[in-house]
């Protein structure tokens, strides 16, 4: 037994346990205020919104700063997407329409991750079918990769079938930015509509 050098196991153990608990507490985030969020709070985890893309609705190049003062719901999808994208968009539009006057301060940004097939014109028609607040955005692969990397999402293409159709893998989450362009919430597809409405109302109620 002469080789063991510790005589008191309990003290270092307690300190170690304390440190681990402290780290745990630090990580699980006590950086928020008193606000309770029903979707995923991501304050401080991701950088503020920056992009330069072409707006299908205006037909011109737009920047993230152009939307300061609005609450943004950003979603990565593609027009040929069979179910998830239209479902998400209509769910978001549904939530926004329940906000009454607040809806004017919301924008849903649909960023196409399939710019090869999604032309600006078609993208404009597609997004307007969901509602006035929905804006289709398109960009080159380079700008898309920069944006998706910034938000740690990825997308990829399947091999085209005989008719040239292919699937696109993309993120299922909606990134929510406040009026200052800070990343605040992540809406996952398992979040119920009531949770989305609750959180958007709370965001709208914030100063700014």
């Amino acid at each position, binding site marked *: 037994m*002469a*080789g063991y050098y510790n005589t008191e196991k309990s003290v270092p153990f307690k300190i*170690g346990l304390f440190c*681990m608990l402290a780290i745990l507490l630090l990580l699980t985030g006590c950086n928020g205020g008193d606000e309770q969020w029903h979707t995923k709070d*991501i304050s401080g985890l991701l950088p503020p919104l920056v992009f330069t893309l072409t707006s299908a609705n205006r037909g011109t190049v737009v920047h993230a700063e152009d939307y300061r003062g609005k609450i943004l719901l950003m979603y990565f999808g593609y027009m040929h997407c069979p179910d998830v994208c239209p479902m998400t968009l209509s769910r978001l539009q549904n939530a926004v329409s329940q906000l009454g006057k607040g809806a004017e301060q919301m924008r849903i940004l649909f960023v196409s991750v399939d710019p090869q097939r999604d032309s600006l014109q078609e993208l404009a028609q597609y997004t307007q079918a969901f509602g006035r607040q929905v804006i289709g955005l398109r960009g080159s692969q380079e700008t898309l990769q920069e944006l998706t990397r910034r938000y740690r999402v990825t997308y990829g293409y399947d091999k085209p079938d005989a008719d040239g159709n292919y699937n696109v893998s993309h993120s299922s989450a909606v990134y929510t930015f406040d009026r200052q362009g800070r990343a605040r919430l992540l809406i996952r597809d398992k979040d119920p509509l009531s949770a989305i409405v609750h959180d958007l109302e709370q965001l709208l109620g914030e100063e700014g």
Partner: protein
Amino acid sequence: MPSVVTLITPWEFSPTALVTSLGGAILYWRGMRQRRRENRRTGFLPALSFYLGLFLMYAVMQTYIDYLSQHMFWVHRLQHLVLHHLGPFLVVLATPHKVLGRGIPVKWRQQFLLPTWYSWPVRKTYRFLQNPVVAPALFVGLIYLWLIPEVHFEAMLSETRYKIMNWSMLIDGLLFWWLMVDPRPPSGPITLHYSMRIVILWVVMILQIVIGAYIALSEKVLYDVYSVCGRAWPISPITDQTIGGLTTWIPAAMMSVIGILLVIRLWMRKSAENDQESVSVADSKQV
């Protein structure tokens, strides 16, 4: 298929990773050269082990593997297997401190490095971390901590937390495996007795089997961040999770087995030396 350039360029460039890897490689090389001048050979196997470990750790952090690790659970588990187990193990197996020390210019070593190393805050911290209770608790604790679904989710989303996660695994890996394979006899104040090392390796093995099996056999998706952020290629979330769990379970446990075999070898060698000593002492007494 990504191009070769994409494969070998960092996904998120980290100056720290580049400087420490390159610095380590250069210091070791300088150390070998210095020792050769002093007519001491370093040995091919230790050098190979050191450079291989260093290379593996750099590769999983600063190549396309890092991108895949962020978008595929099982690749992430593989990345941590290298950062927490294989890489540090290979590096410390080379017992590189003497070579690295010779590689540092004498002035720096005398004026800065040694005084810092022997200063009491550094010593105290090191001894605390290398305590036979704290070291395994930290080793397994970090694995469990970063695999708590909420913690994991945020670590994968935030670049800062992701870096903290990976560096904590790497640094703790070096500390833990050095404590296990330290070839110095366990009579000193900071080397553990062989039996103690075997117990520690066994305990961490069991705890890793528990979490690995739990993940591998779980029927519901525990880590949804990969669905949220998109997977690198289409694979069912459950398959991804099962492979990831198996990676946490089997190769990680095997590393403990290898560690135990190594400790037994050190132990046998030491007792053989002791026997020889006692024989020679007995001989001298007879004369």
